[in-house]
């Protein structure tokens, strides 16, 4: 097996192991929960017989490791458990919400990536100028702000006090898909984009600056190539690996940031369901959502590392040479 495949396989195996431990951690956390889960589902008025029946039905009388295995088996086959708050299966509760949250993430990534890459490149080619320092100042300020602060400021600017051109919360009725009214997506996506962009701008600027100072770019310049060709053909390809990594990490970060933003805009996604479930202490829903978010997080981190491995010429050439 080539070095490349070995490294990627190794990295994949680590991710699978981490996910297993994560699932164990999430399951173990719920064992700390005071009180009886069956009573939590049925409510305080339930008769002891019904509690006993549900306890048996849920298998709560079995040892913890057996319950862990059956929970894990359920998760892998799409059975995410039972929500005490909605009195229905968790998978039913989450179905449409996953699509709604995915829409936010995809739109944010589609908008922020080209903007951030362009701004980063622009700053790197104008290092030391006023444009550059204005950009890095702005990204320093934006990077410091918690996402809900950016969201609230945008609401004040565009939805309430200054201008009133956009809805400040999601206005779709329950059951109506969120994309039926695109205007309600603008502020959540803008908030997430403004949180993500500064990091990618800074990373792009840093890696591209490094590349522009490197010997091979100097060489290309000395050959007499126009600066534009030097930038596009020689410097930019050099930065693809690190920047792809940052992009993937930002996507992973969005998985957490989306929670606060969905709550702020009352957006019917997974994040808002998580907040509701935490407030109601609806444990099986919390378990399912934290596992979904952690799995997404692990997968995107995996993608980031694989991108890093693929972009590393030392590894690529080691395998290309048949080593």
């Amino acid at each position: 097996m080539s070095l490349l495949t070995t490294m990627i396989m190794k990295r994949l195996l680590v991710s699978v192991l981490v996910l297993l431990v994560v699932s164990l951690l999430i399951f173990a956390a719920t064992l700390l929960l005071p009180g009886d889960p069956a009573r939590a589902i049925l409510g305080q008025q339930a008769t002891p017989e019904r509690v006993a029946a549900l306890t048996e039905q849920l298998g709560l009388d079995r040892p913890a490791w057996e319950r862990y295995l059956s929970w894990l088996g359920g998760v892998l086959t799409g059975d995410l458990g039972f929500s005490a708050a909605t009195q229905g299966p968790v998978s039913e509760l989450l179905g449409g919400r996953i699509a709604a949250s995915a829409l936010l993430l995809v739109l944010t990534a589609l908008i922020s990536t080209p903007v951030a890459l362009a701004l980063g490149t622009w700053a790197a080619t104008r290092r030391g100028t006023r444009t550059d320092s204005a950009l890095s100042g702005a990204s320093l300020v934006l990077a410091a702000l918690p996402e809900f602060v950016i969201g609230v400021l945008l609401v004040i600017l565009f939805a309430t006090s200054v201008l009133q051109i956009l809805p400040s919360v999601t206005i779709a009725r329950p059951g109506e898909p969120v994309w039926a009214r695109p205007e309600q997506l603008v502020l959540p996506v803008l908030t997430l984009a403004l949180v993500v962009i500064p990091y990618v701008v800074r990373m792009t600027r840093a890696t591209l600056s490094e590349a522009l100072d490197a010997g091979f770019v100097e060489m290309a310049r000395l050959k007499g190539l126009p600066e534009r060709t030097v930038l596009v053909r020689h410097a930019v390809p050099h930065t693809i690996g690190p920047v792809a990594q940052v992009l993937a990490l930002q996507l992973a970060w969005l998985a957490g940031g989306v929670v606060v933003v969905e709550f702020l805009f009352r957006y019917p996604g997974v994040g808002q369901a998580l907040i509701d479930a935490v407030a109601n202490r609806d444990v099986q829903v919390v378990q399912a959502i934290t596992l979904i978010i952690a799995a997404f997080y692990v997968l995107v981190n995996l993608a980031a590392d694989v991108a890093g491995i693929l972009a590393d010429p030392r590894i690529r050439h080691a395998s290309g040479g048949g080593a």
Partner: protein
Amino acid sequence: MSAPAVPAGLLRRTFRRRQARIGAVLTLVVVAVALLGPVLGPLLTGYGVDDFAGRPFRPDGVAGTDDLGRDVLTRFLAGGGPVLLYALAATAIGIVGGAIAGMLAGYSAGDRTSRLDSLIMRGGDVLLSFPQLVLALLAVAVLGSSGWLLVLVIGITHIPRVARVARQATLSVAGQDYVLAARMYGVPRRRILATEVLPNITGPLMVELGLRLTYSIGYVASLSFLGLGVQPPAADWGLQINENRIALIVTPWGVLLPVLAIAVLTVGTNMITDALAKESADTTGEAPA
């Protein structure tokens, strides 16, 4: 070989930068509001923190009334304490825990008989596979919300992130002659780490301190904003935003004051951190030249 430049005076050189000084002023203004506000508020407005000043969401007084009819300005002035205290405590846990874990891992990395390094770093990987806020939410769901639980969870989730930096810094110090000499003299590991390694990795640790403090402020405020951090009837900036955001059009100050305070505070700490990072990078960059 001489010892690497000990970043003595790192702070002094950092605060020669204009950016760091602006950051310090911003931070100090908010800290002053948070510390003096609880005393000044009742004197300025004539209302106590829990006093009812009038009907809810009325533009009475300087900044109006909140969702229960309490004076917004009084509660804003009183509400900076929790977020500062919790964020500082969470940062302290993260930095101390992360520095110890990272130094132990980095110091034992060269020792083939010790599995401490991989044990610490793989354990950290598990904690790193949750977004920090999501792990905090899991803890709140199971154990109920209390300020000190948040401090503990946020602090613990900082540890693997700080440990990575501390480990990397330790690796570059561990092979230096003065460490090897101390080792040869049989100085116990604990003392080598405390007296030889720690003083030489304070640069990266200071940068981490600033970064983690900025993030901690954000997380604590976010959780209170979600209604899962500081609980009513306490006065707290995050909670105040949550309580008053439905009346943003009528009485915007109930939201705007705490939002601006948190914004100015995090921007201030981040500006100092950025200056620290630049100064710290310059120091290590100059060392080999």
